[in-house]
């Protein structure tokens, strides 16, 4: 359990730098605005207590806000996915599944991850984009932006997962 802490700090640093230096500078179009940073909260160990998830979601969101200049917006969205993560994992995981320490794309499988990341990113980006625009005008533009950004975010997240996940099975002791 202890070596999870340096691993997660390292992951936080990589995701933060990738987000602010690459993904926030991509400028595909005004419809596609990918975020891979929330992956940090989504990959924390399964056993993490819920209140810890919420605080980590909030604080990591504030860290990203600090660099992007959007005070509080990523914090609000990060807190939300930290809060609902245990619910969601319960709902989408079949009964009797043996868990590893933390979500791993080779253990849970790609379908599970697409559902997991798709739902959380959709919720995350819905909150983020609507708070950012602070208005419900242009509803269809917003909806399209959320859908496209979710899809692109999930694709990049999967690429990240396949690049950095360990194939070795680490059984939960």
């Amino acid at each position, binding site marked *: 359990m202890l070596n999870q802490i340096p691993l997660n700090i390292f992951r936080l640093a990589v995701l933060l730098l990738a987000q602010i230096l690459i993904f926030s500078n991509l*400028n595909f*179009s005004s419809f596609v605005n990918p975020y891979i940073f929330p992956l940090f909260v989504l990959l924390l160990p399964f056993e993490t207590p*819920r209140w810890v998830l*919420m605080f980590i979601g909030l604080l990591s969101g504030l860290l990203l806000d*600090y660099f992007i200049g959007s*005070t*509080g917006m990523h914090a609000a969205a990060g807190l939300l996915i930290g809060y609902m993560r245990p619910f969601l994992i319960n709902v989408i995981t079949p009964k009797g599944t043996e868990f590893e320490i933390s979500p791993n794309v080779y253990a849970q499988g790609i379908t599970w991850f697409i559902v997991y990341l798709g739902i959380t990113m959709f919720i995350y980006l819905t909150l983020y984009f609507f708070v950012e625009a602070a208005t419900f005008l242009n509803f269809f533009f917003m909806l399209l932006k959320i859908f496209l950004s979710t899809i692109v975010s999930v694709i990049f997240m999967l690429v990240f997962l396949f690049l950095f996940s360990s194939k070795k099975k680490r059984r939960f002791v």
Partner: protein
Amino acid sequence: MYNLFQFFLRYYLFLLFVSLEIFCFYLIFQNKHYNEVAYMNVANSVSGKVYSTYTGVSDYLYLRRFSDSLVDENAKLRAQLLDSKYNSKIDSGILRDSTLKNVQQYSFISARVIHNSVNEAANLIYLDRGRLQGIGKQMGVINANGIVGQVVAVTDNYSAAMSVLSKEFKVSAKFKKNEFFGNLHWDGVNSTTASMEDIPKHVPVKVGDTLVTSGFSQLFPRNIMVGRVKSVTMEPDKNFLEITVNLSTNFGSLSYVYVVNNLKKQEILLLDSLAH
């Protein structure tokens, strides 16, 4: 009392969640309007350092493009040198007072863009020049192609400008051919277009007409390029034309900009306060 205690024990996670969300939204709305607090932290040392290091690396990759745009700009500046113009007033002899000659109204501070975005609802540009280099809040920002934005926060060595691509940004612009003026603001959707307001229906506007700054606001000098008309529509139930403008500045590839220092700003503000 026991029931209340039971209630808190049962729903403490939800209550914690709600109170933390309220805290977040307090932060968001506290900083919604462009005040200094919101961007101080962005322009300050830690993130400023990260962004300038990154820009230092990426500059090498784009050196060719930078030097091309600098050469273009040098050519334009050379064309404006007194030597390259024919001075027709040489013997007119009306103005003899030497203090009235060459009165400087604007000075320009060059700055490098260290962070830029075009996809947000309010797009910010961070510059590597700040208070110590003479930059202040409410100064305009331009580049070789046209207007870029307005400085909203300054620290000692960095500053943040909201770009034209922000809902709060408005600039007074006019048609180059007939001097009719109105307000230009961003429509929030596309990073290459903006819309022009307050142009009455009787004004003849054609696709391709050039828009330049009017110089009425204290942000920009006169006749800085803004863009060209992309489309004009006339709604029967409205008094004004609906004009879409192709912005001349390419916000996706900003590298170097000039911050406009209006040396007469205090005097004009004083005049403004006297007149009201």
